[in-house]
């Protein structure tokens, strides 16, 4: 701590921080552009000028850039000095000379940092009368608009995109007063985190194209705290609604998880909520028109007259919905809805996380790691936001070096000048990954080989760990060097996950983590879906047993919760199961094959229209809240399951509490969201900003009198602009706003310190307490993979845009799907006589034709493996086969029309 004087007042601030960040942490207003709490200082915009005095006597002082000036004990500065004010106002006037002043048609308007800073500096009158330089804009693909004339050249975009996120296709072009931030030519931005440009750019150069299509000002959007449901990390989001439509998603700061950034799947994958495939009415087979009441009665009767009912849960449904189903059908009749392989994997992971004695880190903690080993994951595709964190972890070595050289850590340019000094990152994966560019070493192999490789590393670290036999010399020496680097680390991190569908890989990852000598070691697993961990903790039975119980006649009725079984098991087995079941009830939000086979379909609300608790991969339970009410007769899944009169739960919180007491591991979920007792009694937190407009008019085309606001009986929020905003914990704020701060950068006002934790704490309850105990070494080492001539093993490789069920139904993402092709090793391709782009026939081992797809060559894919995009419906028939045979297809024929779906 240091004591400094700002405009005559004494303050205690963090030693070594820069003055801008300190001033903002103190809650003072000081305008800035180029500095970003996650990216440090650049000193490029000159907006944060203040006066620094030499000593107590100095009356004149001199202008310094606050973001480039370190805090020193007893320093005297002034933000308010006339000279500083004048400088800042002149500076912004200069930055704005070329700005088109087109706020009324600019989508940044109303949440624009440039507007806020302009008002803050008092530059309210334009004097410049000269010509303005103009630019051509580029088509940057389906996600981002480009309007370069609005640029003030703060350099934040390239600093984020290139330096922070590793994207190479957006650069600064040109020079002096004619700089351009764009691509070499038109085309979709390649980086998976491009959407953050929308929030990083302080002006309206980069805006959300998916939002443009149905644009609404920030102050007219209704918002609630939400959680991203598109992967297992649980990033915090702020979805915005208008006219019953989800219009966009932006980042909601969480100090332990996503910080300031989301991935593009999370930001742009929301379109399914508005999609044509939404189920909006209940359906009963054979009846044309059904109301909610009829459907509910039908449901009741089915349950009443059934011989026995089983329930199939879902890793994409909330804990409460799953628990309600489990309670409805009884513990013995509840199935998790996961195929055997995934079920086993998740159980293995739960066991390791809860009883393995090794901490599972938050994303912020992963960024602190000084050595990382990834086993079997291409994290950019399986847990995207984690990849962004690991990219920062790699920089820790250069931070250490900077520290030794007394360079403050926020001196971004100076640290980058130190050159590519990287903390070790090792990646063992099936084929090349999107993080390879910052990796110290990579290893490619089949899942079995990755596991063996991991076991070898563990053995190098600790001889009592099992040792694989017959490793090649190369593998051994790489394993040794990785072990050495991990051993030297103080905060080593092991990352693994479910992508390889291999328990051996998980176990090997645990062995490595267990063998590490460091106290502060961490182990994290990426999981397939947003509530995979929560569901696995509930301890139900695997899907196959559900099939058995119907097929064996033990039960005749099945209730399926938000789960397309055709994604989980082979077509045949699901067909057989659904045929055999006398009655099939499906509760879901989108049309899918399973829905198509149901006798009774109940329309479920999505994450945007209901509440629930999800457990992320770290083991953190988090609550999401409805952004807007579900359009009648759509209801939250938990409501369909608890509205039956024998139900004990009228309200969501009661259901949460019951779930918490039913499972000791879930006991803490009642604290998944901050308590709201201290909010003024009787009032709720408004979801709509106080400037929300048009409430009396927006439904005037239907009815002139203003309808009452929908009531929310379940959450602390109101579907209204009225309510109590004082004393609301920042983690519960639907909209981030402070007087004078209309952009998302207002978050400064709600953090303990800039870039730190939210005041009153970040949300979520960690369910996993690191225990002292350890599991014994795992010793089941698979044999090395040997390609069998003529047979290929299917590898389902996750893809950020191609694999996740719900975002796949979102229009803008469809434009970024990977090519529909299969990957082959070059030698395999040669042996089959196929060139890139040639179609290939894929047959089962008995040589029955299955599918035909073009081939892509992947140099890093080991021989004997066939890569497909995980989760993509087109490849579904391959997913449940172990091996296939391949034939060069006759190129004259049209590729693949036989594929089911």
């Amino acid at each position, binding site marked *: 701590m240091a004591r400094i004087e700002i405009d005559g007042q004494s303050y205690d601030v963090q030693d070594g921080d820069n003055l801008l960040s300190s001033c903002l942490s103190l809650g003072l207003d000081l305008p800035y552009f180029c500095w970003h709490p996650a990216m440090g200082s650049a000193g490029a915009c000159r907006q944060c000028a203040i006066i620094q005095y030499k000593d107590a006597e100095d009356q004149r002082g001199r202008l310094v850039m606050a973001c480039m000036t370190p805090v020193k004990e007893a320093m005297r500065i002034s933000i308010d000095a006339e000279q500083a004010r004048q400088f800042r106002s002149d500076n912004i006037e200069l930055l704005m000379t070329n700005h088109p002043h087109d706020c009324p048609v600019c989508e940044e308007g109303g949440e624009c940092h440039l507007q806020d800073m302009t008002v803050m500096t008092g530059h309210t009158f334009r004097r410049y009368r000269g010509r303005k330089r103009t630019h051509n804009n580029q088509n940057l693909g389906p996600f981002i608009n480009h309007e370069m004339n609005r640029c003030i050249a703060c350099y934040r975009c390239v600093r984020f995109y290139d330096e922070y996120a590793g994207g190479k296709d957006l650069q600064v*072009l040109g020079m002096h007063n004619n700089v351009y931030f764009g691509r*070499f030519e038109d085309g979709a931005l390649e980086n998976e985190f491009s959407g953050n440009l929308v929030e990083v750019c302080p002006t309206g150069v980069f805006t959300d194209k998916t939002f443009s299509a149905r644009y609404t000002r920030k102050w007219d959007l209704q918002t609630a705290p939400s959680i991203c449901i598109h992967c297992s990390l649980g990033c915090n989001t702020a979805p915005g609604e208008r006219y019953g439509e989800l219009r966009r998603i932006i980042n909601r700061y969480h100090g332990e998880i996503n910080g300031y950034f989301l991935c593009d799947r999370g930001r742009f994958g929301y379109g399914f909520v508005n999609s044509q495939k939404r189920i909006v009415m209940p359906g009963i087979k054979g009846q044309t028109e059904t109301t909610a009441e009829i459907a509910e009665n039908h449901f009741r009767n089915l349950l009443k007259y059934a011989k026995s009912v089983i329930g199939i849960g879902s890793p994409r449904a909330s804990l409460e919905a799953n628990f309600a189903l489990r309670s409805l059908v009884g513990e013995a009749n509840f199935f998790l809805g996961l195929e055997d392989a995934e079920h086993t994997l998740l159980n293995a992971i739960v066991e390791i996380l809860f009883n393995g004695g090794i901490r599972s880190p938050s994303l912020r903690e992963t960024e602190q790691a000084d050595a990382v080993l990834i086993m079997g994951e291409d994290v950019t595709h399986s847990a995207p936001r984690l990849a962004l964190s690991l990219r920062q972890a790699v920089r820790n070595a250069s931070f250490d070096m900077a520290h030794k050289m007394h360079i403050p850590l926020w001196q971004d340019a100076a640290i980058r000048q130190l050159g590519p000094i990287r903390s070790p990152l090792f990646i063992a994966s099936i084929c090349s990954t999107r993080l390879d560019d910052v990796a110290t*070493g990579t290893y490619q192999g089949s899942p079995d080989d990755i596991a063996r490789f991991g076991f070898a590393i563990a053995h190098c670290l600790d001889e009592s760990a099992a040792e694989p036999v017959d490793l090649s010399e190369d593998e051994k020496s790489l394993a040794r060097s990785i072990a050495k680097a991990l051993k030297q680390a103080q905060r080593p991190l092991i990352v693994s996950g479910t992508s390889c569908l291999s328990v051996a890989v998980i176990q090997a990852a645990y062995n490595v983590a267990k063998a590490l000598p460091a106290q502060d070691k961490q182990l994290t697993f990426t999981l397939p879906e947003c509530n995979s961990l929560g569901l696995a903790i509930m301890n139900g039975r695997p899907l196959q047993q559900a099939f058995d119980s119907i097929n064996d006649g033990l039960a005749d009725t099945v209730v399926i919760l938000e789960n397309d079984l055709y994604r989980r098991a082979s077509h045949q087995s699901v067909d057989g199961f659904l045929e055999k079941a006398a009655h099939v009830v499906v509760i879901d939000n989108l049309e899918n094959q399973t829905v198509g086979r149901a006798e009774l379909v109940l329309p479920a609300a999505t994450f945007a229209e209901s509440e629930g608790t999800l457990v992320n991969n770290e083991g953190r339970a988090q609550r999401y809240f409805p952004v807007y009410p579900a359009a009648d007769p759509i209801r939250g899944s938990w409501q369909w399951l608890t509205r039956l009169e024998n139900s004990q739960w009228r309200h969501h919180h009661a259901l949460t509490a019951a779930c918490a007491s039913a499972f000791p591991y879930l006991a803490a979920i009642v604290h998944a969201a901050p308590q709201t007792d201290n909010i003024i009694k009787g009032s709720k937190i408004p979801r709509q900003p106080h400037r929300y407009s048009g409430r009396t008019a927006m439904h005037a085309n239907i009815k002139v009198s203003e309808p009452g606001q929908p009531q929310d009986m379940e959450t602390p929020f109101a579907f209204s602009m009225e309510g109590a905003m004082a004393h609301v914990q920042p983690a519960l704020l639907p909209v981030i706003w402070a007087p004078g701060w209309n952009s998302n950068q207002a978050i400064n006002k709600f953090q303990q310190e800039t870039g730190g934790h939210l005041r009153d704490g970040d949300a979520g309850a960690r369910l996993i307490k690191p225990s002292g105990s350890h599991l014994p070494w795992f010793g089941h080492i698979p044999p090395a993979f040997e390609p069998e001539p003529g047979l290929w093993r299917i590898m389902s490789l996750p893809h950020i845009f191609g694999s996740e069920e719900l975002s796949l139904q979102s229009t803008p993402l469809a434009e970024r799907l990977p090519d529909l092709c299969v990957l082959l090793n070059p030698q395999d391709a040669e042996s089959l006589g196929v060139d890139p782009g040639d179609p290939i026939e894929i047959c089962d081992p008995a040589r029955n034709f299955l599918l035909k797809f073009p081939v892509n060559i992947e140099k890093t894919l080991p021989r004997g493996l066939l890569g497909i995009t995980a989760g993509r419906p087109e490849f579904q028939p391959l997913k449940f086969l172990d091996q296939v045979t391949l034939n060069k297809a006759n190129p004259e024929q049209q590729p693949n029309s036989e594929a089911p779906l």
Partner: protein
Amino acid sequence: MKEPIEKPDFEGLSLAEIREIKAGMSHYEDKTAASIEALKIIQKHRRWVSDECLVAVAELLEMSSAQLEGVATFYNLIYRQPVGKTVIHYCNSVTCWMLGAEDISERLCRYLNVELGEISADGEYTVLPIVCLGACDHAPVVLVGDKLKLDVTENAVNEIFGR
């Protein structure tokens, strides 16, 4: 562990260019450090850098075309559009601007019958502005090809073209 990208031909570049660029690259640990040199090699052969060449050079240096474009557009003496055999750069930074840079540029353009950046009809000349050439004490200054003309007067045309 990654194999180097082995491309037999970088479409659009001549063998001589590739050879010279590769020789340049060998002086640096980081290939991209050779980017300015590579662009100059292209200009030596072609006077300017076309889109096609830029993409090929980027590939050769294993950097993105956007990154190389960032380099190319940063430097005044890298031309991303065709130029005449001799480029006439008149300095338009503060001192030269005060002492008549704009007038000189106008005279030169009128004489050559071109706008800034255009090639004269005979293919010989292009006129472009440039930043301070470090000879402010002799302002205004014009760089003709690689020759510096100091203390240029309203007789610029004479002083530069010898008539």
